[in-house]
């Protein structure tokens, strides 16, 4: 009982401190910034509002453009099928795309990290959808992101493993600067996200900004209010959020021109191995 009372007291104190911080920030936001502070404010706003729209637009246009270029090209001149033939070629290609049996067979440790990473990445995507207004994958009012911080671990640790693996021979020898930079981008993107998620889920006091604050920010973005997010994202850790969002924008812009395009291409490529990919084979498969 005593312990329970203590927790409640801490919680009440934390809430009071948060409210005080919010008041202070609101007051601070009403202060007119000049000079360097004004430049930082403008950059923060650009990252948190217009660049979000622009990066998502670049992502969509880039991906569609890449897919159009690929799939408007002529089909392969001859069959690329591999044998023994699968009894259900399309089902086999689907299974190979999502479970990577080749990697499981030849590189089981790598496969474990790959599977954890990809499943967690999907959960990460859903976790961010959960912040959107009207979406409640977690119980309404929960302060936890989907997975309560575990999803962050599940994407961050594999990326560290991928980085170490890429530094070792022979993978290092055919890796390009883009391979390393992409992994570093993901690593820092995840780490800045982890700080918020782990703070809110693993600390009794929480991160300065709560999931409810982020929901208000997403609500503004969804309703195209163009309002300054500073009004709803209180506290001195605002720049961590800005950096997280900036890295995410960078990821969106880079994605269509990077190997992350395999998100969209993995299934079509795997289909070639199982169905052959020629016009005649496509017709045969479609009956």
């Amino acid at each position, binding site marked *: 009982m005593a312990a329970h009372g203590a927790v409640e007291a801490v919680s009440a104190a934390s809430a009071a401190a948060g409210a005080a911080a919010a008041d202070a920030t609101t007051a601070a936001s009403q202060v007119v910034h000049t000079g360097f502070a004004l430049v930082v404010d403008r950059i923060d706003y650009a990252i948190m509002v217009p660049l979000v729209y622009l990066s998502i637009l670049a992502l969509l246009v880039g991906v569609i453009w*890449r897919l159009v270029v690929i799939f*408007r090209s002529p089909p392969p001149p001859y069959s690329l099928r591999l044998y023994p033939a699968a009894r259900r070629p399309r089902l086999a290609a689907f299974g190979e795309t999502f479970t990577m049996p080749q990697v499981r067979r030849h590189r089981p440790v790598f496969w474990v990290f790959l599977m954890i990473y990809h499943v967690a990445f999907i959960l990460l995507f859903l976790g961010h959808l959960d912040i959107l207004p009207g979406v409640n994958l977690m119980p309404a009012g929960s302060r936890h992101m989907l997975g309560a911080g575990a999803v962050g671990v599940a994407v961050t640790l594999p990326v560290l493993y991928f980085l170490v693996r890429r530094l070792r021979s*022979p993978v290092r020898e055919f890796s390009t600067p883009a391979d390393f930079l992409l992994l570093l981008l993901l690593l820092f993107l995840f780490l800045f996200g982890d700080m918020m998620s782990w703070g809110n889920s693993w600390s009794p006091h929480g991160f300065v900004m709560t999931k409810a604050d982020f929901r208000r920010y997403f609500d503004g973005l969804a309703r195209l209010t163009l309002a300054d997010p500073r009004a709803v994202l209180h506290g001195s850790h605002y720049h961590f959020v800005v950096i997280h969002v900036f890295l995410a924008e960078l990821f969106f812009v880079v994605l269509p021109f990077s190997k992350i395009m395999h998100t969209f291409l993995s299934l079509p*490529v795997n289909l070639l191995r199982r169905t052959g990919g020629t016009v*005649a084979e496509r017709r045969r498969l479609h009956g």
Partner: protein
Amino acid sequence: MDEATSLRLKKLFESRLHSAMRLYLDTCARCGVCVDACHVYASIPQARYTAVGRAEVVRRVFKKYFSMEGRIAPWLGEVLPMDDATMDQVYDAAWSCTGCRRCMTYCPFGIDTQLIMSIAKALLIGADKEPKLLTMLTDMSIAKGEGVEETRESFTQAVQDLAPEIKALWPHSPDPVVTVDAPGADVLYVALAGKHSMIPAAAIMNAAGEKWTLSTFEAVNFGMFLGDSRKGQAIATRIHEEAIRLNVKEVAIVECGTAFRAMKYMTGSHPFRVVAFVELISRYLREGRIQLRRDTLPGSVTYHDPCQIGRNGGVLEEPRHVIRALTSDFVELAPNRGDNWCCGGGGGLVALGEKDFRMKSARVKADQVRASHAAVLTTACENCHTQLTDLNEHYGLGMKVEFLSKLVADALVK
């Protein structure tokens, strides 16, 4: 390399960018899972001998000229320009790859390095840097085909001279023992230049009572080895036209992997069936048209799946059916079927000679064969047979290396 050549090669590259090629060039994550798939890397562990290492050479040229990354930040992908130094790398990549496609069984995306190497080979032809011996063999093959009418009589006579050897294997052969381009046949058999590719096949088909005739053309497709799709198509088309003219139901391709795959899968559709000769033997056994003396071979027998017939052609169980009719002591190589190691002689390497490289790069194949402890190593491909014979001698494996058709012909119940 002058600018005009560079521009011409760029256009040549672009002409090869069909959807599958773009997918293969765009999707690789350089995860390195494929490295252990290649027999060359397993035998000579250098990154340039990995599937991804080879494909990267072509991919970096692709990035330079056909990707946003190459235009905005070429250093990100370490792009390669179309110049002489790059063409040296392209040569190294293309002519150390046998096109076995074993790497496809390792890649989580199923990227076909052989297809990517077809661009490398096309670029080398465009830059006049391809292996000239193969160009010569290809052109000779085409010229021989064009002059077939002048040589038909002498060819037919030379084939008839094989009668004693064919009758030694199957005494009940009809007269003439072999017909050439005869109308009314059900099967058109396409052989190689050597008589070893005709005698056992003729004996087997005669024993089966097959209505067959011999093609005037050679099955071997040097154009495909060279990577010249136009010449490869020309070599295949004359067989196609011959089969149409004779109105045959089937074209049976001699034990030659590339010839089989080129004819069956790479040169368009045909109004007749294309079969590997081993498929025909298996069918004769199933239908009871031939009988074989079993267990006459000394010791156990193992089988090497030729890449272009097995993994890339789908003929996997028929050879095993035939071997089990020959022996009760059949041992599989490990791995086998679609996972089998390449012999190291494909992709034109045997035709080019390249014996030093072939022996060094196929050490893993020799180890695999040795581990079977078989007395007889059989296969159904000319290239594989030559390479395995060389490996047998080079590594002192002490085996008998034999064509499957020869083992069958020798065991025919007379």
